[in-house]
């Protein structure tokens, strides 16, 4: 394992300390591993929090700031945070108008957020669970689909809605709409290495890739021969398009998983854009970069969000976080 870290057990706290040091407008409660707006909570504004295992940076801590999250709590690497942390984040985000919990659909995340919500007696809480990963079969009888790339877009758009002064029900409805209109699919060229494990989670021969991979180093749905970017784009875009109705154009999001550099992400984006163009689907906005990662995994995911006028307007609204920033 080759990583710029000290002891594996300290990775999360030390990375949070670095984030806080680099961004003076963020504060961090190192005990509870909560990143929050140093100028928060904003009175009268709906608070937004998210959280999850670490290893997905900049998500979520890097999305704390005006126009996006009010607080984020970080679990151990790939391990959802515990209720106490979520509760601490909730309180730090509560400006009196209620708090939206943005939860990625993983059993651990869902249960820990549920327990936190049960404990947060004096704060009004709403929850939205993202489950956009089309690699996983959608079924009532299973844990269901994972929450992946849509989470980033949702945090931005719901954050803009809250910044506009919408109430908790409205912000929740918008968040839910983002989740409903967005889908994702990912692939891995290499495994990641969890610091505490010290070796790659899975072995992947040089001539193969994992298709339908998540963001926790879990193996994908199937192993396929290493493909060109052109073929890979089709493998990612087609199952996504099978599930959304982009009547007013899409936001196309190509995401690097941590070990794949930007040159490849842009090359893949070009293939994705060409494919959408061929299908007559206008790309109204785009996002290319490593925003929801899986430690050092090489690979990428594609998320398409079927925009509507309101989602587009909220996407374009100012945001001022370490990970996403414009108009500010």
């Amino acid at each position, binding site marked *: 394992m080759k990583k710029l870290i000290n002891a594996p057990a300290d990775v999360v706290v030390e990375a949070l300390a670095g984030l806080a040091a680099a961004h003076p407008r963020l504060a961090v409660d190192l005990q509870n591993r909560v990143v929050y707006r140093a100028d928060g909570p904003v009175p009268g504004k709906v608070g937004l929090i998210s959280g999850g*295992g670490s290893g997905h940076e900049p998500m979520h801590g890097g999305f704390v700031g005006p126009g996006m999250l009010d607080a984020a709590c970080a*679990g*151990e*690497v*790939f*391990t*959802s*945070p*515990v*209720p*106490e942390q979520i509760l601490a984040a909730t309180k730090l985000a509560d400006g009196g108008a209620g708090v939206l919990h943005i939860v990625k659909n*993983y*059993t*651990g995340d869902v*249960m*820990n957020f*549920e*327990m936190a919500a049960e404990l947060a007696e004096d704060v009004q809480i709403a929850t939205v669970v993202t489950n956009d*990963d089309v*690699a*996983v*079969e959608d079924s009532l*009888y*299973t*844990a269901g689909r*994972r929450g992946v790339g849509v989470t980033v877009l949702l945090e931005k758009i719901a954050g803009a809605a809250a910044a506009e002064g919408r109430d908790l029900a409205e912000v929740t409805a918008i968040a839910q709409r983002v989740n409903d209109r967005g889908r994702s699919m990912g692939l891995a060229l290499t495994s990641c290495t*969890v610091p*505490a*494990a010290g070796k790659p*989670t*899975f072995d992947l021969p040089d001539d193969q890739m994992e298709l339908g991979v*998540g963001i*926790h*180093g*879990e*193996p994908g*749905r*199937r192993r396929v021969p290493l493909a060109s970017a052109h073929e890979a784009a089709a493998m990612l875009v087609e199952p996504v398009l099978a599930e959304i109705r982009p009547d007013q154009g899409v936001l196309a999001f190509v995401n690097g998983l941590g070990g794949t550099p930007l040159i490849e992400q842009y090359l893949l984006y070009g293939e994705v854009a060409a494919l959408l163009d061929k299908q007559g689907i206008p790309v109204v906005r785009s996002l290319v970069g490593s925003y929801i990662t899986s430690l050092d995994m090489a690979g990428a995911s594609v998320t398409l969000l079927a925009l509507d006028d309101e989602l587009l307007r909220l996407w374009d609204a100012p945001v001022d976080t370490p990970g996403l920033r414009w108009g500010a």
Partner: protein
Amino acid sequence: MSVEAWVREFARLVTAEAPRLTELDSAIGDADHGANLSRGLNAVVSALDTSSFPDDGALLKKVGMVLVSTVGGASGPLYGTFFLRAAGALGDGFPAAFRAGVDGVAARGKSTTGEKTMLDALVPAAEALAAGKDWAAVVDAAETGRDATIPLVARKGRASYLGERSAGHLDPGAASATLLVTAAATTLGADG
């Protein structure tokens, strides 16, 4: 009978087996089950070392709360709920307490047997206990349930994302749950 000894023995076994639990979790999960549980059980042991409890129920409640607040992931709330629920039912005897814990896991996890989870080891053990079987039979029930997860296709937890590819691997939670049962047999069985 000492539930404290049971918990300490569980902690000892998990710490010793942590690499293997993580290894199992690498195959069909995210390579952290051993790290998660041993982190939590270390914290449990510290809490036991530094506190005293009016009764066993209070002790188990503390165990559950420490696990909930230190493990995270899926197994934190599940094992935490197990001990919290067991604590509340301890007055009805160990088999009833164990059953209550297992029911808590199923409720918290919205899960049942046959979905390739820790319940596949826990439920048979609870049934064997309820049927008054001896400890060897109880451990055997857990181990049989655990090994029976190998061919299963996971429907709950992270392994479910693998679909058919989850078959052929032992569920890490079923492995750790079997340690919980083994620990009970070693400690509670000694004077039972």
